[in-house]
């Protein structure tokens, strides 16, 4: 029998350069927070799923060290990796374990320590997130370079401007400034963004998310357990859509969108029996500003090539047609790879519960969407939550 799954509790660490803690100590912050939110103890958990890309830390196989430190030894763990979509893949794994009836309560610990190595090393690791031999080895592709290739193509085809990309960053920082967990908690201007130094033209410093440490935890439970624990406002995991694409970017259909996002979102909308217009609030994968514009279009929030216009009209701010990344997004909140997908579920759960404070969006359909990309569309997960 297929079981329904709900979010029972969420927890979040502060994102940023967290040189004050080890990976285990960082996990502790999110797990403690999530247990408190769910009002349960470690003994109530059947399975731990640790989502971490784990490519920049000295603890190369960190799932068991983390589980031990947070008092979850014996509860799994399963370690999951899907590049920057690791957190969502981990949520999927935990959710599937509950749906299939194998466990009733699972915790997903999404975590990444990225700041223990220097930036050039980090870029060389990220650049290997595509295809090492045929792209990175030969040409020194980095992640900013991959997204810049998409930005150039989108600008040429649809007339998207550097200013419109800057607007993504300005919006992200506006909401990041209101998020106590965010890496950057300060506002910026379009002019500042446009004047920042070029990383990989046309992308500039403010078009790029920072390199961050962070953890986020999500506790999922079956419908039966929710009744047992008397959870009053469960947020249901309605559907998770997934897809992927070629590792060689040379083999993609085009550079003006991410096919994996289109396919994952179609799967999610179909499974949740909704259209994009039903979504009250979304978190999308804005690792680079152009990525948010691509996401608007690929998720069906606007037509192809109209992403820039949606920003110009302010439709993705609170009060607009579809508020996006009102937690600061990856750009301002930070993007600790394994944590990002879980952090999105944390934010949307709070939004659906009406607990997002100053950043609360108006709820009409009580439907939220999390869009998490791995690599440059190498993976895509679209998770639909509903209250």
């Amino acid at each position, binding site marked *: 029998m297929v079981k329904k799954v709900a979010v029972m509790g969420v927890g979040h660490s502060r994102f940023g350069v967290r040189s004050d803690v080890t990976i285990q100590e960082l996990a502790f912050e999110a797990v403690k927070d999530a247990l408190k939110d769910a009002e349960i103890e470690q003994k109530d958990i059947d399975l731990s799923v640790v989502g971490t890309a784990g490519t920049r830390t000295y603890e190369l196989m960190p799932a068991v060290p983390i589980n031990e430190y947070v008092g979850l030894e014996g509860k799994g763990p399963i370690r999951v990796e899907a590049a920057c979509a690791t957190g969502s893949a981990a949520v999927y794994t935990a959710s599937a374990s509950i749906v299939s009836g194998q466990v009733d309560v699972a915790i997903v610990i999404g975590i990444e320590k990225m700041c223990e190595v220097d930036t*050039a090393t980090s870029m060389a690791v*990220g650049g290997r997130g595509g295809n090492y031999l045929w792209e990175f080895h030969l*040409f*020194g592709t*980095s992640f900013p370079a991959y997204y*810049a290739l998409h930005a150039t193509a989108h600008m040429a085809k649809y007339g998207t401007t550097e200013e419109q990309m800057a607007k993504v960053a300005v919006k992200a920082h506006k909401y990041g400034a209101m998020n106590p967990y965010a890496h950057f908690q300060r506002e910026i201007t379009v002019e500042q963004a446009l004047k920042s130094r070029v990383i990989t*033209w046309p992308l500039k410093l403010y078009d790029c998310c920072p390199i961050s440490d962070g953890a986020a935890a999500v506790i999922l439970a079956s419908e039966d357990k929710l009744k047992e624990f008397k959870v009053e406002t469960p947020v249901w995991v309605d559907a998770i859509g997934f897809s992927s694409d070629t590792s060689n*970017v040379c083999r993609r259909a085009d550079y003006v969108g991410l096919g994996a996002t289109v396919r994952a979102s179609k799967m999610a909308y179909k499974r949740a029996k909704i259209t994009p217009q039903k979504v009250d609030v979304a978190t999308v994968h804005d690792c680079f500003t152009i990525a948010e514009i691509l996401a608007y279009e690929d998720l069906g929030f606007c037509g192809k090539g109209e992403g820039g216009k949606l920003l110009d009209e302010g439709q993705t701010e609170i009060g607009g047609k579809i508020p996006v990344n009102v937690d600061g997004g990856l750009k301002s909140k930070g993007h600790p790879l394994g944590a990002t997908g879980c952090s999105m579920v944390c934010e949307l759960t709070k939004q659906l519960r009406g607990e997002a404070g100053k950043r609360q969006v108006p709820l009409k359909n009580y439907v939220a969407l999390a869009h998490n990309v791995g690599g440059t569309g190498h993976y895509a997960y679209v998770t639909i939550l509903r209250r």
Partner: protein
Amino acid sequence: MAEENPSITSRSITFTHKVPILKTRRFWEKLEEGEVYATKCRKCSRLYYPPQGDCAHCLSSDVEWVKLSKEAILETYTHALQRPAGFNQYEPYIIAIARTKDGVRVMGWLEDAKLEDVKIGMKLEMSTRKLTDGFLVITFKPR
């Protein structure tokens, strides 16, 4: 300040891999001669670039080598000012993706062109070049 937090230095570890190229040897050899090769499945005729010794479509491992045309059209590009570790010894480079006359896309460095003159759709000539440290790179030049 975050930098002031106490820390200790880890034991260092360096990975330098031996990448097997038995199935793609021709590609690497031909780069030395300024040519770029793809593979074609003898059974189902699929053309693969980057080359691969096994056909993902029909699962045959009977493939032949095909020399790609040097004529290509620029599809997209970026000027990489900030470079990853392993590439900082070079001047900033333009990474380009171009489609050859054969219909496959090839990545390379676009050279001998000013950034402001680069336009998507421009005609390019594909070649290769040995960098000062011995690594080979595929290059494009305006035609």
